[in-house]
């Protein structure tokens, strides 16, 4: 049984199609990133997974149950966007309250330690910085030790240091074989922390695979060298070359198979200088996959 099973869901807001007929199956224990620019439909998709947004079509199952039923049984924990904390309570009271709602929660001190809140346990929620409040919201999401953890842009507005600490905590939580689905528009977050990346653009899933596969699918790698004043003609006919760019005395060959390209380059009779083989960052892959999407 899949931890998350999204089947043909669609959602429109007025004339805007936020999510267009998407399906997604996440097996138990997988850490999946939903990657996309702002406005791509990530939050709507996450909202439907959690049962917070009713889909116009299709349906969602979490561990074989409806989202509401899964929530009622304490199978789900979530960090949603725009989740302010209630006032006049201490960190320990809020986290302890949410923890107490679940049937088999983590020990409270373990939760506070995991979220890095040990020192802040007695602080009132109104006196926390943005980053500290975000850690409290993370603690609330994991306190019940849910099987499925859903995080909507969990590190938005955190600095680099805090973001790193955050992912260490999320990975520790996932180690127990739990399923994690998180939305992000930070490419390196998806690359470094997910087993699988689902790229969303304009309400559609445009790519789905491991971070390495996503990079490969987005046009693969490049072979670049100094051409000088030698002619570039004929390079596009080399085996496995998909595109050729010439500029500034350099030529860049795009390919899915740089080994073959390099081998055949040396039989062209050209003088090859400053040869480089590069794998594009996930960022480039992401841009090529979502090209034409809305800018915001």
């Amino acid at each position, binding site marked *: 049984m899949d931890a998350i099973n999204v089947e043909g869901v669609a959602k429109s807001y007025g004339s805007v199609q936020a999510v267009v007929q998407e399906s997604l199956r996440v097996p138990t224990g997988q850490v999946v990133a939903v990657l996309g620019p702002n406005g791509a439909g990530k939050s709507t998709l996450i909202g439907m997974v959690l049962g917070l947004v009713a889909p116009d079509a299709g349906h969602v199952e979490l561990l074989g149950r409806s989202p509401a039923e899964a929530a009622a049984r304490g199978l789900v924990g979530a960090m949603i*966007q725009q989740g302010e904390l209630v006032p006049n309570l201490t960190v320990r009271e809020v986290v302890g*309250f949410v923890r107490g709602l679940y049937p088999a929660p983590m020990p409270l001190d373990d939760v506070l330690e995991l979220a890095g809140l040990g020192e802040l346990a007695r602080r009132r929620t109104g006196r926390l910085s943005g980053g500290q409040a975000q850690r409290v919201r993370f603690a609330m999401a994991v306190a*019940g030790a849910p099987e499925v953890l859903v995080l909507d842009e969990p590190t938005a507005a955190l600095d680099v240091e805090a973001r790193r600490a955050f992912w260490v905590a999320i990975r520790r939580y996932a180690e127990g074989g739990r399923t994690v689905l998180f939305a992000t528009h930070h490419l390196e977050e998806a690359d470094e922390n997910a087993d699988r990346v689902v790229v969303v653009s304009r309400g559609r899933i445009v790519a789905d695979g491991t971070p390495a596969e996503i990079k490969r699918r987005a046009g693969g790698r490049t072979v670049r060298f100094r051409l000088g004043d030698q002619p570039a003609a004929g390079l596009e006919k080399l085996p496995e070359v998909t595109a050729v760019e010439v500029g500034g005395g350099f030529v860049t060959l795009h390919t899915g198979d740089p080994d073959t390209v390099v081998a055949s380059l040396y039989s062209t009779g050209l003088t090859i200088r400053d040869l480089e083989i590069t794998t594009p960052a996930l960022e480039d892959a992401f841009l090529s996959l979502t090209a034409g999407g809305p800018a915001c």
Partner: protein
Amino acid sequence: MLNYLRLELLQVLRDRYYLFFALALPVAFYLLWSSIFAGDRLDPVTGLTSSVDIMISMASYGALGATLMSTGVRLAAERRSGWLRQLRVTPLTPATVIVVKTLAAMSLGLPAVVLVGLASVLWQGVRLDPPQWVAITALLWVGTLPFAALGTLIGSLAGPDAAQPITLGAYFGLAVAGGMWVPLSVLPQVIRDVAAALPSTRFAELGRAVAAGHAPPVSAGIVLAAWTAALGVLAVVAYRRAW
């Protein structure tokens, strides 16, 4: 469920505005009015001395305010802040949330009733039989139910910016027309006619009747039950849409 009730109560009991508006203000008003209108002259409508009559007025006023403010304004804020959405992904059900919120709101009116009663005993030497005190406290607890429903209705429909003035408007409107600030006997006949149908008048009447030594009139129970039923249905419908 008890866990959630405790959390709801703690949040409000630590709120300075609650302490001021729902506790300090009714007690202070009691001390002020009962000093100004001291005397044994019986009120022609209620048949109570002013020190007892004002005690019931201010206890009702405090309970009314606490119940309305702790439902309307807070529910609107929790809808905006995402806290209710956060609760939706936990095992807490929407029915538990609304039941606990109602219970909490009703109970948050109790401290005002007790404190104003205490002030009347200590300051004005008001003496009632123990069963009367118990009955007044219990009735002014149960009787807040229509106001909890009204607050839930406001909080489910209005945003946080609008919920505040709407709740305050309902609060002061109900308090004044319900004879909590000024005795009904001095209000114009038009307002007195309207007041008979208002839940706030009937709410205070529960306490006034017991303080005067007789059972509350059946008509008061009927009016309060009717308001509770009507506002309750609207509140549940609005809350389910807002949840």
